[in-house]
């Protein structure tokens, strides 16, 4: 099933509550395949019941597309088999790396250099050949920057050369625009419209005026909602997912934010 409308990240910790949701409340769910592959018992059962009722997107964490470690081909094949089993069409990952001499299980900033582009593009093509579809890569939040290019130059070049698509995370654009002093509006406007497959929105943590951390542990801020409106205006309405990984509010509060996405999608001037 293909994703559309507004979605929510499925969490094992909220599985019981989330299993009670209806397609009127949430259009699609997103999961990290690394947390749901090879999973039986009560979790596997609840997951299968949900995939029969809702479209799903896989949003991976361990691919490590920008890593110097070898690409884990067996893992990519296992992701493909998992998606085929559950009828999942969408697989997104991060324009990032999360391993160096072993997995580190969180996202690191790829140096924005020409040799990194060559490396990433070649690995994206390998993954796309196995998955038989374009890889969708998310712009990630970063707190340090390496390399001579800007994030925008690097991202556009990777998309252009690899034929990959983008998961536009508007919160990450906001966070990075503060952390690395650039114009978030200009960044979103400059992205190629046809490459944007879907959108993420989330809350962040204010470490300092000039340093924001992408925690997914707070409500979405007004500045970020404005960037979502802008993204719809520039690139058209795309399926959009609310990410929340920590400090879970009540289900009604979460659904309130999902409904805000719906309202903005319906009200978008396109």
């Amino acid at each position: 099933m293909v994703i559309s409308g507004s979605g929510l990240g499925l969490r094992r910790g909220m599985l019981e509550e989330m299993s009670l949701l209806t397609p009127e409340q949430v259009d699609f769910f997103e999961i990290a395949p690394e947390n749901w592959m090879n999973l039986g018992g009560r979790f596997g059962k609840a997951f299968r019941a949900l995939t029969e009722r809702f479209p799903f997107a896989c949003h991976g964490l361990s691919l490590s597309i920008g890593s110097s470690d070898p690409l884990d081909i067996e893992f990519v094949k296992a992701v493909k088999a998992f998606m085929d089993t559950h009828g999942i069409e969408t697989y997104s990952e991060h324009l990032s790396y999360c391993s160096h001499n072993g997995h580190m299980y969180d996202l690191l900033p790829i140096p924005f250099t020409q040799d990194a582009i060559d490396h990433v593009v070649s690995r994206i093509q390998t993954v796309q050949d196995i998955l038989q579809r374009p890889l969708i890569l998310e712009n990630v939040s970063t707190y340090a920057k390496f390399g001579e290019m800007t994030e925008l130059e690097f991202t556009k070049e990777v998309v252009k050369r690899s034929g990959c698509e983008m998961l536009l995370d508007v919160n990450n654009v906001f966070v990075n625009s503060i952390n690395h002093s650039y114009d978030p509006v200009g960044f979103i406007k400059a992205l190629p419209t046809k490459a944007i497959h879907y959108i993420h929105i989330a809350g962040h943590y204010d470490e300092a005026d000039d340093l924001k951390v992408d925690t997914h542990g707070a409500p979405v801020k007004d500045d970020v909602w404005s960037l979502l409106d802008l993204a719809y205006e520039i690139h058209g309405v795309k399926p959009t997912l609310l990410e929340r990984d920590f400090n879970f509010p009540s289900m009604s509060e979460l659904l309130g934010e999902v409904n805000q996405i719906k309202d903005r999608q319906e009200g978008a001037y396109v």
Partner: protein
Amino acid sequence: MSDLNFRAIQQAFTDAIRSEDQSDFQGIEARRLAVYRELFFNNVEGFISGTFPVLKECLDENLWQKMVREFFIKHECETPYFLEISEEFLAFLQSEGASSLNLPDFTYSLAHWEWMELFADAYEAQTEVSVEAIQLDSDILTSIETAWLQAYEYPVHQITPEESVEQQATFLLVYRKNETVNFIELNPLSYLLFQALQNNSNQTITEIVKELSATNGLSFDQLINGAMEIIAHWSDLQLIKKIHQ
């Protein structure tokens, strides 16, 4: 660092994130590097404390932090799957990296037991539990797929922060039924009996007990009644099933 290739930058940056040495890193503000150091270490600590809560309570806080830090720095995790980070941690506990930490002797046994609980809960079974009636005297029997035997050097199921335990061979049978994980403590003979059932492909209970009595220097008559009784109990719990020849 702009004159370096991206691999060299990645090497230097990941070294700095893993490092215990909190000194500055060329070209990056200390507070920004600190964000990465905290995010990464707390993330790994969260996985480990989530899977091994009893071990965490049993260890002194400083020792716990030191152990997780050592795991984060020294152990090269191969698995892309988050639930399997716990298996990487078990491998670390058995490696040289952990040997210098002076951990309590029961650490590995307890950690393995806590992992076993998680493993049993999430295990992806290929077959459903059979509810078919069993003839104890004639059927060829084996264990169900969601039953696991474990032998430990400590009574791991009794360890609490308040209660220190003495070394003592401990046999536990963990099983999942109706999506709930349970366990039974076994004596050494019932452990061997269940193990024989797990490995069984063509023997009747009488044949299995004959072999057990011979290898353990016990008389068949001494064993058979007790064996039948405990197998009937396992049958009631649906831990064993018939093999169709």
